[in-house]
């Protein structure tokens, strides 16, 4: 597999969470504002790149029977490091993301990439894969976060976009708004894929 292909596949072909339909929990839960979505995406990207790197480095040492346990230990270590760094340098963000940062450990995308890609590919290629999927995830969460924040609060990155007469569509920043937003985006993407005649359409 070429680097170009690996670097690009996370941006459309395997775009999480829309195309993989993995990692929906953070995509629904922390995207009430773009700041949260972006922060969550970046934290997950960091964990993805380094978990892919470590797992790829150790892929010939880790015995097959205990691979899942080893992957989880490595991923959990990275997640706790991210959590502590966030608490030390981005405290308000870490308070808003709360429980969802430790929950990156069980994010299917990360374990999925470890199992499907990093455990059978060389180190640099695996890091490229982590970067690509991570950027895709970050962009997706930022998109959902932007839509919800703009419609639901009338702001973007906390900056008011409309005049004081704007009545925000509060429904969008509550939980049901997340489902609605994600559903509509998934629908649009599937319609676009179908038009392009691509084979993977989530049904």
């Amino acid at each position, binding site marked *: 597999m070429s680097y170009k292909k690996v670097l690009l596949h996370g941006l459309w072909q395997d775009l999480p969470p829309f195309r993989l339909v993995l990692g929906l929990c953070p995509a629904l839960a922390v995207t009430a504002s773009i700041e949260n979505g972006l922060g969550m995406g970046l934290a997950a990207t960091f964990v993805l790149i380094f978990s892919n790197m470590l797992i790829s480095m150790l892929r010939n040492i880790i015995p097959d029977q205990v691979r899942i346990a080893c992957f989880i230990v490595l991923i959990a270590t990275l997640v706790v*490091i991210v959590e502590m760094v966030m608490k030390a340098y981005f*405290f308000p963000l870490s308070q808003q993301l709360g429980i969802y940062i430790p929950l990156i450990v069980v994010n299917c995308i990360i374990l999925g990439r470890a199992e499907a890609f990093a455990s059978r590919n060389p180190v640099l290629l695996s890091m490229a894969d982590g970067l690509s999927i991570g950027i895709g995830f970050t962009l997706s969460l930022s998109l959902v976060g932007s839509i919800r924040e703009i419609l639901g609060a009338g702001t973007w990155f906390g900056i008011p976009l409309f005049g004081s007469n704007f009545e925000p569509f509060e429904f969008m920043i509550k939980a049901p708004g997340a489902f609605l937003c994600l559903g509509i985006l998934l629908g649009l993407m599937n319609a676009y894929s179908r038009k392009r005649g691509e084979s993977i359409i989530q049904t």
Partner: protein
Amino acid sequence: MREISKLVLVLSLICGISAAALTIVRVSLEERIDMQNDFYVRGPALEQLFQKPANDVLKNKIAFAIDDITYPIFYMTDGDMITGLAIEAPGRGGYAGDIIIMMGIDTEAEKIIGLEIIQHSETPGVGSKVEKVSFRKQWCNLGISESFELRTHGGIIDAISGATYSSNAVVDGTNRVKSIINDHLDEIESLIQANLD
């Protein structure tokens, strides 16, 4: 047999190295995390308790260690007199771990001026209601000589319905502060005096 020992060895090695890495990160970031906690969590709580800007109170900090637990204590002074204390303590037995509380005490009138929740991981919407003013204000103006109990145990504190564990943990934390005040006030005062000089 050799197969199994290899599995055990690799997994233990990975766990060991991970633990070492985490310890290093924790030790190097601990101080900074504590600073952030002071600024974003304890500061606002102290402002609520003493009605003074956080910066005036945050620097009046001592650490009082007893029974392997270190309690951060903040104090207010009027000249040489200690007028108020804010003691932070863990409340054991929460539904999802300890609930860290901070209790403000007027040392002259020997009564409680307020209760703040510093940190908890209780279920949102259920146990998280311990943060509500209506629950916390039950401690306001109470004396510090008697233990606090939930009404179901014959006390005067109303538990949050559906969150007995969380309510109990807060009661436990406040009782801890109460016993520190009752048993070790002299030691705390001398620590503060030493800090003032």
